[in-house]
């Protein structure tokens, strides 16, 4: 616990207040050399009752990277990301074995509470799920539940998070309106802003664009590129083009196993496993 608390965030200075437009097609794997792992799983297994849903998962995810998780429906990819912040335990019959290390601490250790883990590891869901509250209250929710009440601090956090989520300009005049009045794509970016407000290290995204139209999807993908400067992203996607476009590394899940995990370029252009090749070339799934 001490370890995480004192761990410095090795992040670039955050660009708040201005929206920096960068070349989103730059080769991100090549920019600044070796990165430290943020998540590492050791022989992780998970059962829903008798169903062995995840088998011997050994994966490493690095800081300031976008890691994509792909695979056909029911392969366990959603279950896996939900295990990373222990949301999967909301299902009562779940049983786990093995380790998941978050910055070298096992997340299943009694020393770490799930609440603490989830403030460090934020999550964005498949369908936009804003609270039935104002936009401001949505974004301020995280800091508030963790005891931050000062209006001045909250105002700044809300603005910064909305800017980082690239939606500030669209909503700045109606922060007190209900978030349900926004379009689906805007709602999803408010949900991302809400996840950013507690300044997590990692953001898990579970098919974040599957409920969005193509224009909104592009906006969210652009946003992912921006976010990886400050955060580590682990993104589940059913959309292979998306994985190819945005991610640095890709893991291919199949029937509860990790078939292949490598740089995205390799997975899509030169996969080692026949099943990976079949999947990424659209032969099944």
């Amino acid at each position, binding site marked *: 616990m001490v370890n995480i608390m004192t761990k410095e965030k090795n992040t670039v200075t955050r660009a708040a207040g201005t929206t920096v437009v960068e070349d989103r097609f730059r080769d991100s794997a090549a920019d600044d050399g070796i990165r430290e792992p943020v998540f590492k799983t050791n022989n992780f297994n998970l059962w829903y009752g008798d169903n062995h849903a995840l088998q011997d998962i050994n994966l490493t995810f690095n800081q300031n990277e976008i890691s994509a998780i792909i695979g056909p429906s029911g392969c366990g990819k959603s279950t896996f990301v939900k295990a990373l912040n222990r949301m999967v335990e909301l299902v009562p019959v779940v049983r786990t074995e093995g380790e998941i290390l978050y910055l070298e601490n096992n997340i299943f250790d009694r020393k770490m509470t799930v609440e603490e883990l989830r403030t460090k590891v934020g999550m964005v869901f498949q369908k936009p799920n804003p609270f039935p509250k104002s936009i401001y209250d949505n974004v301020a929710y995280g800091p508030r539940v963790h*005891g*931050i009440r000062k209006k001045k601090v909250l105002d700044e*956090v809300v603005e910064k998070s909305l800017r980082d989520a690239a939606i500030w300009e669209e909503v700045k005049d109606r922060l007190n309106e209900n978030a349900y009045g926004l379009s689906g794509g805007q709602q999803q970016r408010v949900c991302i802003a809400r996840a950013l407000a*507690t300044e997590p290290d990692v953001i898990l995204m579970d098919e974040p664009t599957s409920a969005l139209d193509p224009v909104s999807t592009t906006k969210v993908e652009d946003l992912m590129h921006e976010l990886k400067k400050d955060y580590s992203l682990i993104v589940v996607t059913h959309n292979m083009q998306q994985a190819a476009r945005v991610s640095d590394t890709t893991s291919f899940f199949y029937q509860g196993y990790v078939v292949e995990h490598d740089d995205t370029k390799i997975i899509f252009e030169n996969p080692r496993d026949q099943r990976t090749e079949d999947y990424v070339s659209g032969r099944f799934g």
Partner: protein
Amino acid sequence: MSNYNIQEMIQKNKSNKGAFVEKSIPVILFLITSVSVLATIGILYTLISQSLEFFSRESFTTFITSADWNPYGAEPEFGIWALIMGTLKVVVIATVFAVPVGLGAAIYLSEYATERLRKVIKPVLEVLAGIPTVVYGFFAINFVTPVLQSIWSEISLYNAVSAGLVVGIMIIPMIASLSEDALSAVPNSMREGSLGMGATRLETTFKIVLSAAVSGIIASIVLAVSRAIGETMIVSIAAGSTPNASLDITSSLQTMTGFIVQITSGDAAYGSSLYFSLFAVGMTLFVITFAMNIISQWITKRYREEY
């Protein structure tokens, strides 16, 4: 740009108070929840203990076999069948009136009515269901009874017909809305299958929809009958206070609930047989309505249609 480090502030705000709240909330909520169980225990304890007191004074056998109910005087008689028959007469009339009307309304609402009409009728039914029973009692004695008397001269001021009809009116909204729920739950594909073969709306309703929704409808009727049995003010006002086991529906009678109200609004000396007889009657009433509620729940659960 940001002057604040949120994660640092979060760490600083961490306290053990939260953990204590988290642990105690479910316990507190559980304790409050147990009040509903205590209420049931209270009802059972009250009815059983006071009824036992009653049966230590009066014969249990007479109570459940005799039809003579004459609780006053030097040698009181406590034969519950006089009151049960009174209740039965009112409830049968109410059911015979309310079931066809309620079901007809449910069929119209679910199979024929336009969405706009439904939006008008449903609130009317809700308002009707929300009218206090004392108001229905007033309506029975001041409107329904005089109207009945003008067309049926043998009927007396207090009678089973007027009370029965008005109790029926009271339970119509319940039958209509619960049955409509059951009918609406039948998937449209079933109706389309029948209509597509050239069956009329009516044939489809009777041969397909009603038979598919039958368990929900029966459950709603059983529940409504249970409500009618427990109904108190209408019968106290319009049915009279003459306990008798006859099948005559034109003259005064007394129901179980009517007896309880009559005795408690007069002065039953605390500790007398009369006082304890309230609880024996209450117990009988409770057992009957409880059994019907259980039956209704059982039907709903046992025959839940899987569409």
